[in-house]
């Protein structure tokens, strides 16, 4: 082989090497007691998944070039809670995922005490090892069933200013965390002005059943949906009060709050001004689901079967 040929080959090799620095593939895989956990990287996007087959099964993603950015719309949408109370003192998060929400809230509301309840110790390990989740004295992690934890928290007299239910993005839905009785238990854990946020389903039959469960327990709620995601966020400010005893923020008030939050939320990629506008619209919207579908209860909660098409 001539020197020129060798030179050409090495140039091509170098070009190929620089053109494809993409990390792509599964970095970590483990089977826990509850699910199969995959950590998958595609370029700068590091994702926690529960299955490789479905592309929409990402549980949580981190953008390595902008680690603070919230990749998913539903994570951004749940930050709407800050519009109603920008400085909650006590926060309860059900479901850890990659730890996006507790880590962001830890930085955004440094005075708050955050408790995250996650049943699966393997998820906690993966969030820590791959997604930089860090617990500390004000960012606590509890490895326990959320229903049991909630009941014990009530006995211990704990009350929260913000509760985020975020346990419903996996392939298997914990059915005992979707019932009216559970939602009632969560309602009783809120302070009078406390907000409840739930990331839940907007597709399949389950949407109707679930919406009616929230309606039964809380009366009217803000059903915040976006066309571009399979999720919707249930927002209930002052959830402990009866529907007519709640103070409704006007669109102007929401927009003013959003303006105040905008600078802080920008590094997280949360378009809070757009969110405030959408929340204002959503709080005027009428129910768009079938009101006759049976609400879910401890007696009737086949959530996983209802989710099938």
């Amino acid at each position: 082989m001539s020197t020129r040929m060798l030179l050409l080959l090495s140039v091509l090799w170098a070009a190929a090497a620089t053109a494809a620095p993409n990390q792509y593939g599964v970095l970590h895989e483990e089977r826990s007691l509850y699910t199969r956990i995959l950590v998958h990287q595609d370029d700068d996007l590091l994702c926690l998944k529960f299955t490789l087959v479905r592309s929409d099964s990402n549980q949580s993603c981190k953008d390595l070039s902008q680690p603070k950015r919230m990749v998913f719309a539903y994570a951004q949408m749940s930050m709407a809670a800050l519009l109603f109370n920008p400085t909650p003192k006590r926060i309860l998060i059900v479901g850890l995922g990659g730890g996006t929400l507790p880590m962001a809230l830890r930085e955004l509301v440094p005075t708050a005490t955050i408790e995250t309840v996650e049943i699966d110790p393997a998820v906690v390990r993966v969030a820590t090892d791959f997604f930089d989740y860090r617990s500390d004295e004000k960012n606590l992690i509890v490895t326990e069933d959320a229903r049991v934890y909630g009941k014990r928290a009530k006995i211990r007299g704990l009350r929260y200013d913000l509760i985020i239910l975020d346990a419903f993005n996996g392939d298997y839905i914990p059915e005992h965390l979707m019932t009216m009785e559970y939602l009632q238990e969560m309602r009783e854990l809120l302070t009078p002005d406390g907000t409840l946020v739930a990331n839940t389903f907007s597709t399949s039959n389950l949407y109707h059943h679930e919406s009616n469960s929230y309606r039964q327990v809380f009366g009217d709620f803000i059903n915040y949906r976006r066309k571009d995601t399979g999720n919707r966020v249930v927002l209930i400010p002052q959830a402990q009060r009866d529907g007519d005893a709640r103070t409704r923020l006007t669109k102007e008030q929401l927009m003013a709050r959003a303006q105040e939050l905008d600078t802080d939320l920008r590094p997280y990629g949360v378009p809070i001004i757009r969110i405030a506008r959408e929340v204002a619209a959503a709080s005027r919207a009428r129910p768009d689901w079938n009101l006759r579908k049976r609400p879910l209860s401890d007696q009737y909660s086949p959530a996983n079967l209802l989710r099938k098409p």
Partner: protein
Amino acid sequence: MIPVIYLLAFSGGFVIMSLELLGGRILAPYFGSGIYIWGSIITIFMLSLSIGYLLGGRLSVHNPSSSRFAAIFAVAAVLLLPLTVYAQDLMEFIFLRVEDPRYGSLLASVVLFGLPTVILGMISPYSVRLLVENVAESGRIAGALYFVSTLGSAIGTLMTSFYFVLWFEMNTIILLLIGCLALLAALAFSADKTFNK
């Protein structure tokens, strides 16, 4: 009479597994849905069944009859009734006293399912006694009974987890199981009368 006994053995298997599956649902609001829940339920069902087998075998020694067989079903039906009424209160009581959900769920399983499952466990050995007439056929008959009652268990599992939970509330399913046991008790009892005539 013989087909009736097989039908009863089948239904016994059906009810046991249907109940076991509902067990997970019943315990979840107080003790969660961790793997230990199934550990508690399966342990208590196995333990209760084993005691039931022993007692059923003992009971079959003296004056075996279809009416006594019927009584087993009637007693099981009666013992299941509190499950529809007092389950919440009993679990609340245990939840407040036992902090660890593993031992809480184990204790709740004993209280809620122990006794009815012991009685349901008596069905199989008692059926063997009613069917076997000589030693030579005992193995064949025991085999056929295991076949029928385990088939009942399989179908009970499938129907409950695929369809019943989608169609009915939990208490409705338990009441259906109770109704089924009561009906079978009546059937065995009347079969005994016609059989002895």
